[in-house]
C-alpha cells in the first residue's frame, strides 16, 4: 500500500456543479480543485449556500436533478467516481467513503433500536448472521464510548451527543478510507461538541481514515484540520495549511468569516458580520466591502494562484492579496 500513500485518497479537479431551473441555472460550485492525502484531515469552510455541501454530495454521487456536474473530475484512489454505475456505487458508498450528514442525529429511525440499525449495516453489506451482526454492533458502540447495553435503546432515549456518536460509529462501521462530515456538531453545545471532536480524533488515530470536514466555524476547523479551503459563492477563495491560514488570512472573505464569531478575548468592539448581498452574474457580491482595491474581481471571483508553496489565494495576476 506504499504507492497509495503518495497518491491522494481523493482528488477533485475543476469541479463545476450547476442547478438547472427553467431557463436559468445557478452555479453551486465552480472550478473547485483540491486533494486529500491518506490520513489527512481537509476542511472546507464557508457560510450557507457557498457550495460546501454541494461538493460533499458530488463526491458521494448524491446530487440529484436539477443539480448536475457539468465539468471536472473526481478520482478516489485513482478510480473515476463519476463513471461508477449503480451497482459499483452501492459497493463504493459506505465501504470506501462514508458520510455523516448535517443534523445526522435526527437521521436515526425512531421505531428501530440502535442495535437493529447498526446491525443492518453488517447483515446487508457483510452478509453476517443476525447474532454476529449484533456482536459487531456492540463492539462498534464501545469504540465510540457508549455502553453496549444501550443497543436495546431507541434513539429518543439517547441524548443528542450520544445519537451523534452512534451515527459516527455507523459511518466508520465498514472501515472507509474517507469520512465526509458535513457540520457534524452544529446543533450541539460547546461541551458536547468538544467531546464529539475528541472522539473523531481518537477514531481517526485508530482507524487511519482521511476526513473531509465541512463547517462554518473556522476555529473548530483549524483545531481539527491539517489543510483547509475557504469557499465563497461556489469557489474556493483560499487554500492553505490550516494553521497558516488562521494565523494570516490572505483573502478578505477569509478574514470576514473569522470575524463573524465574537471573540472570547480582547476588547469588545462592534462586529459587522458577513455581508449578505447575494452573488449575482456580474458581481461577486463581496467586492463591495472588500478593503482592498479589488476592482479586478468585481465581475467574478478570480482563479486561485499559488502565492507561497502550498498557499493558494483567489487573486488576479496583478492584484494585491
Amino acid at each position, binding site marked *: 500500500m506504499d504507492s497509495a500513500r503518495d497518491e491522494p485518497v481523493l482528488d477533485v479537479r475543476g469541479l463545476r456543479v450547476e442547478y438547472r431551473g427553467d431557463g436559468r441555472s445557478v452555479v453551486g460550485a465552480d472550478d473547485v480543485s483540491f486533494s486529500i492525502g491518506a490520513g489527512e484531515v481537509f476542511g472546507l469552510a464557508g*457560510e450557507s449556500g457557498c457550495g460546501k455541501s454541494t461538493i460533499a454530495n458530488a463526491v458521494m454521487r448524491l446530487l440529484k436533478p436539477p443539480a448536475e456536474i457539468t465539468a471536472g473530475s473526481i478520482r478516489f484512489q485513482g478510480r473515476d467516481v463519476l463513471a461508477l454505475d449503480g451497482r459499483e456505487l452501492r459497493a463504493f458508498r459506505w465501504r470506501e467513503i462514508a458520510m455523516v450528514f448535517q443534523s445526522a442525529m435526527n437521521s436515526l429511525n425512531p421505531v428501530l433500536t440502535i442495535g437493529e440499525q447498526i446491525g443492518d449495516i453488517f447483515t446487508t453489506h457483510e452478509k453476517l448472521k443476525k447474532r454476529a451482526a449484533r456482536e459487531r454492533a456492540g463492539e462498534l458502540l464501545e469504540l465510540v464510548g457508549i455502553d453496549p447495553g444501550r443497543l436495546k435503546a431507541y434513539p429518543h432515549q439517547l441524548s443528542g451527543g450520544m445519537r451523534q456518536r452512534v451515527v459516527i460509529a455507523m459511518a466508520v462501521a465498514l472501515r472507509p478510507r474517507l469520512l465526509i462530515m458535513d457540520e457534524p456538531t452544529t446543533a450541539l453545545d*460547546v461541551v458536547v461538541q468538544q467531546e464529539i471532536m475528541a472522539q473523531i480524533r481518537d477514531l481517526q488515530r485508530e482507524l487511519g481514515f482521511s476526513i473531509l470536514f465541512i463547517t462554518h466555524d473556522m*476555529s473548530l476547523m483549524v483545531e481539527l484540520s491539517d489543510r483547509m479551503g475557504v469557499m465563497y459563492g461556489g469557489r474556493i477563495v483560499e487554500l492553505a495549511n490550516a494553521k497558516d491560514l488562521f494565523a494570516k488570512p490572505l483573502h478578505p472573505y477569509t478574514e470576514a468569516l473569522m470575524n463573524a464569531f465574537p471573540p*472570547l478575548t480582547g476588547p469588545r468592539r462592534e*462586529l459587522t458580520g458577513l455581508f*449578505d448581498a447575494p452573488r449575482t452574474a456580474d458581481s461577486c457580491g463581496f467586492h463591495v466591502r472588500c478593503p482592498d482595491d479589488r476592482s479586478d474581481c468585481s465581475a467574478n471571483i478570480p482563479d486561485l494562484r499559488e502565492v507561497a508553496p502550498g498557499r493558494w489565494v483567489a487573486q488576479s495576476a496583478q492584484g494585491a492579496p
Partner: protein
Amino acid sequence: MTHPLLSVRGLTKDFQVGTVFSRRRVRAVDDVSFDLPAGRITALVGESGSGKSTIARCLARLEQPSAGQVLLDGEDVLRTERRRASQVYRRKVQMVFQDPFGSLNPVHRIEHFLARALVVHGHPATGEALRELMTTVGLTEDMLQSYPHELSGGQRQRVAIARALAVRPRLILADEPTSMLDVSVRVGVLNLMRRLREERDIAMLYITHDLGSARYLADTTMVMFAGELVEGGDALAVMDAPAHPYTRLLLSAVPDPERAGSYDPVERARLREAILNPTSCPYGDDGTCSRTEPVRHIVGEDDGQPHWVRCHLRAPASDIARRVLKATDDTEKAETTAA
C-alpha cells in the same frame, strides 16, 4: 424603594420522568435567584440540559415553577396570577424562541403576525405601525406580504423579534435566538438586540451556549450548571477571570486553535458528579462541599457589579471557618480549621 424590573427568588422546577411504574423527579432548576434590571442585557450561559431554557419557560409562564417567586416590579406574579399569566404580564414580558422555522405559522403572511400582536394588546394595527416595526428590525415593508417560507432564517428571527416588540415589552426572553441561524446573519441579529436595548431601553435575558456572543452582547453574565447558578457578574469579568471551575471548563470547550485540546471531558464528568451528589468536590480536598452547599461569595466588583461565585474554594478564610463550624458531622475538623 425601587425594584429591579424582574426578580427571581428561589425558583425551582421539578419534572416527573419515567414510566408509571418507575416515576422519579428530575430537578431541572434548583433554588435559583437573580435580578433582571431594566434596560440591561443579562446572559444565561451553560451547556444543554443545564436548565437555562427551563428558567426562560418559567419566566414566560409556559411552565409552572414548583417553588419560588417571580417578582415583576416588586409584585409576586406567581401569587397574584397563579394559574396563567395575565395580559399585563405578557405585555411586559415577551419571548423569542430558538427555532424561527417553527415559531411562525406557515399559512399566514408576515403582516398577520405583527397585526395580531398589536391588536391583542390594544394597539391599532395601522399600516404605519407595521412599517415602523419592520424598519426597526431591519426588514423591508414589502416583506409584510411574504409568507414565512419565503424568508431566510435570519429574516424570520427578525420577524419573531418584531412580533415581540409589537406589544412594547419591557423584557424580552431570548432563548438561543441565533443558534439555528447561519454564521452570515448571526452578528446582525445580535446587533439588532443590542440596538433595541440602547434605543428602547428593553431588558433582555439572553440564553445561549455561545460564550463569545454572551461576552459580545451582555452587560451581566450568569453561568448555570446542573440546575444551579454557579457564577455571575460583569460579562467581561466572568469571561476574562472565571472564578468557578465549571466556568473555566466551559471556556476551555470553546474551539480555539491557540489552546486546542485544553478541554478535559473527565473533569466535566467529575464536576457534574460533585454538583449532583455533593459528596466530594474534585477541587476542594477538605471536602467542604460535602457538608454544606456553597453559598455566594463576592470575588470582585466591575463596573459597579459584584462578581460572585458559589464555590468554597473562593470563600474568604473566615467564611470557610464559620460554615465548617456549622457543619454537624465533622466537628473535630471544624475546630482545627477555625483555629
